[in-house]
């Protein structure tokens, strides 16, 4: 059971609101931390007193540093190499899917337009990544 915070990297304030709502409706207790651009996300993950999230939800179209670059830097850094990263985005263009997996995403989810469907998707994601999945150990000596 992973009870660390969930890092949501999303620049669209409407999407943030709806995603927070979806997590609340699913009674997911983990704290939801929001970064509204790539720079902020990397500062949170690689700065002083880095955030150690149980899960990262990453949109790929972001201002300043774009989502795929954030993913690359997450995987490049030893501290965050094994973080579960789910690309959560609007597009399902093949190019984006291929690039995401190539750069080390654990999963690719296209955000549905219908909110009720999105709530169901968040439920499935939450159950899997926070309950079923075993994250990489982060204790000393690893």
């Amino acid at each position, binding site marked *: 059971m992973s009870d660390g915070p969930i890092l949501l990297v999303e620049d669209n304030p409407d999407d943030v609101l709806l995603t927070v709502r979806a997590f609340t409706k699913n009674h997911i207790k983990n704290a939801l931390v929001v970064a509204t651009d790539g720079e902020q996300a990397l500062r949170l993950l690689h700065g002083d007193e880095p955030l150690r999230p149980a899960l990262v939800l990453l949109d790929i179209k972001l201002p300043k540093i774009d989502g795929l670059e954030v993913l690359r830097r997450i995987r490049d850094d030893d501290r965050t190499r094994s973080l579960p990263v789910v690309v959560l985005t609007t597009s399902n263009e093949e190019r984006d899917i291929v690039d995401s997996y190539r750069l080390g995403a654990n999963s690719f989810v296209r955000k549905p*337009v219908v*909110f009720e469907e*999105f709530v169901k998707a968040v439920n499935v994601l939450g159950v899997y990544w926070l309950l079923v999945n075993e994250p990489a150990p982060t204790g000393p000596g690893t």
Partner: protein
Amino acid sequence: MSTGTMDETGGRLPVQVGQEQLMALLDHTSAVIYMRDADGRYLLVNQEYERLFRLRREDIVGLTDHDLFPAAIADEFRANDRQALAGGVPVQVEEQAPGEDGLRTYVTVKFPLVDAAGKAYAVCGISTDITGRKQAEEQVRRLNDELELRVRQRTAELEASTQELDAFAYSVSHDLRAPLRSLEGFSQVLLEDYADALDEQAQGYLGRIQANVNRMAQMIDDLLHLSRATRTQLQRERTDVTALAREVTAELVAGEPDRAVAVEIDDGLVAHGDPHLIRLVLQNLLGNAVKFTAHTDDPVIRMSAQPQQGIDVFTVRDNGAGFDMRYAPKMFDPFQRLHSTAEFEGTGIGLAIVHRVVTRHGGQIRAEGEPGRGATFRFSLTPAPDDWVLR
């Protein structure tokens, strides 16, 4: 010198072939003929030589090419002469000589005359003007180069416009769907959090908003599919259409577990086309057939092929709802529908995709239908001569 004249008794004397006769032959050919000794001095030229270089044979005999032509040309002639004299066998070369309107090109055969001791004492030359032929060759080469350049330009243009389409489709993929998500999501929030404040009618209106948002999202996806059918590179290979059609059918049937539809795909259907794009065509045509037989007892769908003047024509036929032929001309336009959404769902993009793929393959497509009695779609996937029309 004897000629064919009469003797004293009135009988004909036999013709003897001597210099007079031979010179007559030489003087009436269009080839340029000449003879020079081992030192390059002219011994003989024919009439065509005289005409071409505006010289008289009496004036030339004893002179060399260096007396008559510019040094460069004379050097070339002399070199070729030497080659023939030394080699002892005929040589064929291309030479250039001045003509009325500039340099002309000749193909020349030079061969030595050899004495009893085997020594070459003279060289003979026979030259034919090939200037016209060379010009034609040059023209062809130039046209080919121009053509290649144009092909390269067109390919570059095509790649550029494909990239633009790509960028456009990509931006649509992201940018248009995000606001739709917000519209749908916040309508849902209102329905959930303000249910008490919203009467049935208000909730109904929100429902309509959501339905339209859904429809728009679907249309965007359909446009993306249509643009993919245009964008993706067409790569032809031998495609087992029977196997592909049976795969697609299995998927369609699995998606409709409550229905029993008889789908017959003939054996041995083959096409030389792009299998991914052909799959799109089959998904849409067979999918339509399954969809429009939803209200038919004993639905039957069949796919077959027949050659028409050597070109394979594929047929997909069903006995479902059919359509009114009066509206047929528009049926391949994007988002054009011949039935209401209440009767059958769909946005009307399927046939536009089919039409796009068939056209990209160089083929044609035709539809026939009768309300209540079914529809038949016939299409080809091979470019045909201009006068071939799919029946």
